[in-house]
C-alpha cells in the first residue's frame, strides 16, 4: 500500500520519533526494585505487629510493582500515551467491577446493611 502520495507530516515525524526503549541498565534497576518490593511484601506478611495495617501496605506495594512492570517492562512510560489509555481505562473499569461486586455481596450476606429511616 504505497501508492498514496499525500502523507501527513505530523504522522511521519511521530513514526520516526517512535520506539525509544530503555536499555538493559534501566531494566536491571527495575528488577532490583521489584525484588526489594517483593521481599518487603513477604516481610510484611510475616511480621505480627504489622497485621492491623497489612491490607493497605500490601495493596500499595502491589500497586507500585504493577506500575513498575507496566511502565518500564511494558514500556508504557516511554511509548505513546495511546497505549496507556487503551490499558488504563479497562483497568479502571475492572477495579470498579470488583469494588461493586464486593459491596453488593457484602450486603447480600448482611455484613453491610442499611435501614431506611
Amino acid at each position, binding site marked *: 500500500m504505497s501508492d498514496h502520495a499525500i502523507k501527513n507530516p505530523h504522522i511521519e515525524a511521530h513514526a520516526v520519533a517512535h520506539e525509544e526503549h530503555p536499555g538493559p541498565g534501566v*531494566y536491571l534497576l527495575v528488577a532490583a526494585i521489584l525484588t526489594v518490593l517483593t521481599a518487603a511484601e513477604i516481610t510484611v506478611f510475616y511480621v505480627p505487629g504489622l497485621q492491623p495495617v497489612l491490607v493497605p501496605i500490601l495493596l500499595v506495594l502491589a500497586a507500585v510493582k504493577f506500575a513498575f512492570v507496566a511502565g518500564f517492562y511494558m514500556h508504557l512510560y516511554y511509548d505513546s500515551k495511546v497505549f496507556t489509555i487503551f490499558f488504563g481505562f479497562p*483497568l479502571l473499569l475492572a477495579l470498579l467491577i470488583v469494588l461493586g461486586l464486593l459491596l453488593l455481596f457484602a450486603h447480600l450476606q448482611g455484613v453491610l446493611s*442499611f435501614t431506611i429511616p
Partner: protein
Amino acid sequence: MAAQPKTLEYEYPNYLQDPRGIWSWLTTIDHKRIAILYGVSALFFMMVGGLEAMLIRAQLMVPNNHLIGAAIYNELFTMHGTTMIFLVVMPLELGFFANFMIPLHIGARDVAFPRLNALSYWVFIAGAIFLHLGLVRSLAGMPDAGWFGYANLTERMYSPGINIDTWVLGLLILGVSTLLSGLNFFVTIVNMRAPGMTFMRMPMFMWAMLVTTILILLAFPALTVGLVFLFADRFLDTHFYRVSAGATPILWQHLFWIFGHPEVYIMALPAFGIISEVITPFSRKPLFGYPMMAYSLVLIAFLSYGVWGHHMFATGMGPIADSTFAITTMLIAIPTGIKIFSWIATVWGGRLRFTTAMLFTLGFIVEFTAGGLSGVMHASPPVDLQQTDSYIVVAHFHYVLFGGMMMGILAGFYYWWPKITGRMLNETIGKWQFWITLWAFNGTFFPMHFLGVLGMPRRIYTYAPNMGWDFWNYFESINAFILGFAFLLFFINLVWSTLHGEHSSADPWDGRTLEWSIPSPPPAFNFVTIPMVTARDAFWVRKYGSVGAHGVAPAISGGAAAAPVGAPAEVHEHIHMPAPSIYPLIFGLGLFMAALGCMIWIRLILIGGALILMSILGMVFEYPTFGQFNPEALAESTLGLDNRKLGMWAFLGSECVFFASLISTYMVYKDRNLGGFDAMILNIPLTSFSTFILLTSSLLMVLALAAVQRDDRKWGAIWLFGTAFFGMIFLGGQAYEFTDFVLQGLKIQTNLFGQTFYTLVGFHGIHVLIGVCWLLVLAFTTAAGKIGKDRSLAVEIGGLYWHFVDIVWVVIFTLIYLMRTVKHA
C-alpha cells in the same frame, strides 16, 4: 435517479467476480466477502428465529392450546431469543454492515487483521451450529432455560440433558468470535483512517462502531467467566451456583448482566449508527449536532456498565443498590434523548425523500422511542417489581429490539444493498414491506403492554380462558403472522432484486460518505488511491464544495459527475492485497471439535486442539513478513503506531475484565465457604519463590527484547530460552502446589474455596502455559536467525503478553496469598 456516467465501474473486476469458485470463498479474507458470508448466514438464522416466533404465537393464539407442548415451548422461546440476539442482530450489524462498511467509510483497503476477520466468521459458524446440536438427537435436546439461562435451573440436576451443554459451549464459542471481531474493528477504526479523517470527521456509523467495539472488549469477558463457571458446574461437578455448598445463583445474574446490559447497547449503537447514515442523504442535510451525537454515544457506553442491577431489582439488592442502579439507568435516558432529538432536528426542514430506507429510519425513531419510554418505567424499582417477568417486559424489549434494531437493520439493507450487490432493491415491494411491518409490529407488540398489566407472565406456554387475556393474544398472533408475511416480502425482494433488479450506479442516493465514491460493487481493494479527507461528509464536500456541508444542499440529484476519482490503470499493480488463507476455517473446525469433545468423546478435544494449534502456527508463518517492522504501513497509520501492538494492548485491556471477574468471585465466595479447607492451606514460601521466578523471567524477557532490538540474535535467543525456562519453573511450582493440595484432599469440587482458587490460579497458569509455548516459538525462530532488529516487534508483542501475565500474578499473589486471612465481606 439520473443516469450516471460509468467512470471506474468496469475497469477492474469487482470483489464478487474475482476470484471465483467455492474455494475462493472458503479461504477469503476480503472484508467484503466475509461480510457477505455473515449476511447470508444471519439471514438464514433470521428465518429460523422468525419461524420460532411464529410457532410461539401459534401456541399462544388461543387459551388451553396444546399445539406445542410445554417442553418444546421452552426450547422455542429460548432459541428464539438466543438466535435473534447472537445469530441475527449481532452478525448482521457487526459481521455484515460494519465489516463491509468500516474500511469503506474510513478510506482503507481492508480491516486491520484480515485473517482474524475470517477466523471470526468461521468461529461464528461453529458456534451457531453448536447451539443447534440438540436437534441431532431429538427435538427435546435444544436449550430451554431462557436466553439469559438463569442458574440454578441450568445446573445438571435440574437440566440433565444436553440442552444446556450445547448452550454453554455454543455461547462460549460465539464469544470468541465476537471478541475477536471487536478487537479487529476497534484497531481498524482507531488506526487505519485515511489521511485527514480525524475522529470528528468520521461518519457517525464509525463512532457507533468504535464505541460498540469497546463495549464488546470490556463486556464479553464477564459472560465468558460466568459461562466457564457454569461449564465447571455441569462438567466438573463444582458448586459455583449451588446453594447447598454456600454459593448463590445470584452470582450468575451479576456476571451475566454485567455483560448483558452492555450487550443491549452492543446491539443498539450500530443501529443508531446506521440510521444516522441513512437519515442525512434523504434529508439532504448534514447530521444535526454531530459532536453531541458522538459524545452521547460515549456517555451511553460508559453509563451502560453501571446499570446492570436494573435486571435484578427482584433479587433484593437493598435500597442503596436499588437506588443507585435506578438513577444510573434513568441517566442513560439523557444521552439517548439527545440522539433522538438530533435525529428529529436533522429531518426538520430537510428536503425529505421517502425511500424505503428513510421510511424504516423514521419508523426506528418512533418505535425505538416508545421502547425507550417503557424502559424508563422499568428503571423505577417499585414499578419494576410489578412489571418484571410479565408481558410488559416482552413488549418493552421488542419495541427496542424489533422496532429499533431490526428497523435499523432493514434501513441498512435498503440503503447499502446497491453498494454491496450492484443492484437496487425494489422500492415498491420495500414500501409495502414497510407499511405492513409498521402495522403488524404494533399490532403484535403493543397489546403486550396491556397483557402485562393484566398480569400475564412471560414464558408461559398456555393460559386459562377466563383471565381476560384471550382477545389480545388472538389479535397479537394474527398480527404476528402478518409480520411474518412482511418478512416474506423482504426475502423475495432480496432474491429477486439481486437477480433481476435495476443496476445501481456508484452513487444512487447522492450520498455523503466515501463508500459512494467507489463503484458498486467495489473492487477487491476498495480504493484505487486512498482518499484524502478534508471535511466531515467527505464525499459530499468533494461533490459540492464546502457550501454543501452546511444547511440544505442544492437539489441536484446524482453527484456522480464528480464521483469516482479515476487513476491510471497501472496503479492496480502496486496494490498488494494479502493472500487468502484456509487456516481460519481450520481454526473454527478445531474449536468446534474441541467443544464437541467435551460432550461426547474426550479425545476429540486433543484433535480439536491440534487443529487449533496447527492453524495458529500456520497463520503465523504463512506470510514471509511475520513480525516484520513495516515502516510504510506505520507511516500510513493514523496514529503512527503498529496495528499489532495496538491490538495486543486492546486485548490486554479486555483481559483485565476477565481476571477482575475471576478475582471478584474468589473474594466474594471466600467468606461463604462452608468449612473444610480454606486459604490457610496456601503455601506462602513456595509461592514467594514462584513470584521471584516470574519476576526474573520478566527481566530476561526485556533483556531479550533489548538484544533483538540491537540485532543481537544470539543473546536474543539465549534470553528468550531463559524466559521460557523460568516460566516452566513457575509452572512446575504450580503443578507441585496443585498436586499437593489434591493429595491433602482439596479438589476443585471440595468447596467454594477450592473451586474459586483452582479456577483463578488455574486460568493464570493456562496463560503462563500459552506464554511459554509462545516464547519457545520465538526462541527457536530467533535461534534459527530469523528474528533480528527488523522483526523485533514479534518479541515485543510476545513480551507484552508475558509481562501482563506477570502483573496479574502480582495481583493474585497479594490478594489471594498474602491477604489470605483477610475477610472481604
